């Protein structure tokens, strides 16, 4: 049976390759960064098992690793190589030669994931099921990536080391941004464990009537927009608002559907992203790229859509989130 742990090991192995390739080019900060992450994937299961048995040092070592990720990211030594000149013409020629066949492996990832996830119940290996049915989607994604890689190798006639090299190039380009979502989720857990959520919920309770579920939902939505506008990132706003209002007041107290609240709450924050100069790479950089005299020109063009969508999204959320209660 393929369990999620096997997929994590596969990912850990890729991170080890990325570490090794960076070490060979003497980029030690980058290599150290991916090495710490590789540890989380190769030993993740062991760390969780040890913690469950009351052995704390593996988790504490991982905690030190997390802190070192922050220090490495702040060291400013995580720049990736600039792309080599002349590669563009090669890419254009190859795009012309391969045509739409290039899309097949890329589309194979989502389509195979979906097919495997939906078919997980029926795929059997002897007595047990082929895919662990506890987490079919994520395991399917891992298998789909392997299938897509095989298809891509066949289409391009490239070698496997070349694929790892290109994957490493993309990973280095993403750099520390790649770990931001996982760290924000970690922060959400820390906020919940240290009572930040309860403190926010108590403060919100002083301002709005928490017995009223629509008032709570409105506070959640406005909070998502406000925090996103201030921080320029809906991902960063999410753990704060979820720990403070979403989980204690809406899900636990008023019985809101967690899947709906999470998905639509995040999208409420995205409406805020369209409005803020803090989200510079989406709102300010294109104004510069397009040589607009007004640096807020893109935000101005987005504002009516963002505000209308905010209202529609809120009404949809209100209708869908409480539909079971």
């Amino acid at each position, binding site marked *: 049976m393929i369990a999620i742990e096997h997929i994590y090991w596969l990912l850990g192995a890729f991170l080890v390759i990325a570490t090794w390739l960076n070490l060979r080019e003497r980029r030690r900060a980058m290599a150290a960064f991916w090495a710490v992450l590789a540890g989380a994937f190769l030993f993740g299961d062991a760390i969780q098992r040890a913690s469950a048995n009351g052995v704390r040092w593996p988790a504490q070592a991982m905690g030190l690793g997390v802190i070192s990720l922050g220090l490495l990211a702040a060291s400013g030594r995580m720049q990736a190589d600039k792309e080599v000149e002349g590669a563009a013409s090669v890419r254009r020629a190859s795009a012309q030669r391969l045509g739409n066949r290039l899309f097949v492996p890329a589309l194979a990832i989502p389509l195979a994931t979906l097919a495997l996830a939906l078919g997980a119940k029926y795929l059997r290996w002897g007595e047990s099921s082929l895919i662990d049915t506890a987490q079919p989607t994520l395991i399917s994604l891992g298998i789909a990536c392997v299938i897509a890689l095989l298809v891509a190798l066949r289409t391009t006639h490239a070698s496997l080391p070349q694929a790892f090299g290109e994957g490493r190039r993309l990973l280095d380009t993403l750099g520390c941004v790649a770990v931001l979502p996982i760290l924000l989720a970690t922060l959400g857990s820390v906020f919940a464990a240290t009572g930040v959520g309860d403190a*926010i919920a108590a403060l919100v309770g002083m301002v709005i009537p928490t017995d009223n579920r629509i008032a709570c939902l409105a506070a959640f939505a406005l909070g998502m927009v406000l925090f996103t506008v201030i921080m320029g990132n809906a991902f960063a706003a999410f753990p704060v608002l979820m720990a403070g209002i979403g989980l204690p007041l809406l899900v636990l107290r008023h019985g809101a559907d967690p899947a709906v609240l999470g998905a639509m709450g995040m999208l409420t924050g995205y409406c805020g992203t369209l409005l803020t100069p803090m989200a510079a790479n989406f709102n300010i950089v294109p104004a510069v790229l397009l040589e607009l005299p007004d640096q807020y020109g893109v935000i101005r063009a987005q504002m009516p859509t963002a505000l209308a969508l905010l209202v529609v999204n809120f009404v949809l959320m209100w209708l869908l989130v409480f539909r079971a209660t």
Partner: protein
Amino acid sequence: MNYWPLLGVAVVVAGFMLKRSPVLVVVVAGVVSALAAGMGVGDLLALLGNAFVSNRALLLFVLTLPVIGLLERYGLRERAQAWIAGFRSMTLARLLIAYLGLRQLLSMFGLIDLAGHAQTVRPLLAPMSEAAASGADGAIDATTRERVRALAAATDNIGRFFGEDVFLAFGAVLLIQGFYDRQGIHLEPLAIALWALPTAIAAFVIHAIRIAWFQHKLAGRALREKRGQERPLVDSHDQGQSLE
């Protein structure tokens, strides 16, 4: 009630506003709120380590990088650009609405970075939109050109944002799943991703209406200007007055 852990939230807000390295900001915020809650160093490290490991599903998208990286080296982006360039000779509204729909669909399939401001908007969408918005003689005034460019960039952002959350391996979906998982609420990523669909459709409809309205106003103004040109005497008289 101990309000000191809220310092962690203050660290996040201040750090992001001051544009410090976001990874460092988040780590420091976690450490600050744990210390403010009165945790010892041993508990703090264990909490950080356990929380990080149990959220590691968020990095699964890295498995797609060898495939995407290889395809990019073999011209995936160039192929996508050629595809979009095939929309030439459309009206402004049709061009931007087609791009919006395409961008949303590609993002839903996880192909988020195939398009973007540097990849497609500046080299393709903005010049094509300008061409579609200009009159038969190819003329376009500066204000209209800027507004058309800004609308093209806005269309890319909206298409990206309200498509990507439908992709189940996207960070937002797994962030939501990871958060709930730690609180003992177990959800499938697919169940979360599907709930992004209603808003994705609403975003498409709202922005498409705005694009159509923009073109309508543009056409209306062009028509008035054309009528104005048929009365050259009045026109020059008006100009003379406004100069005074």
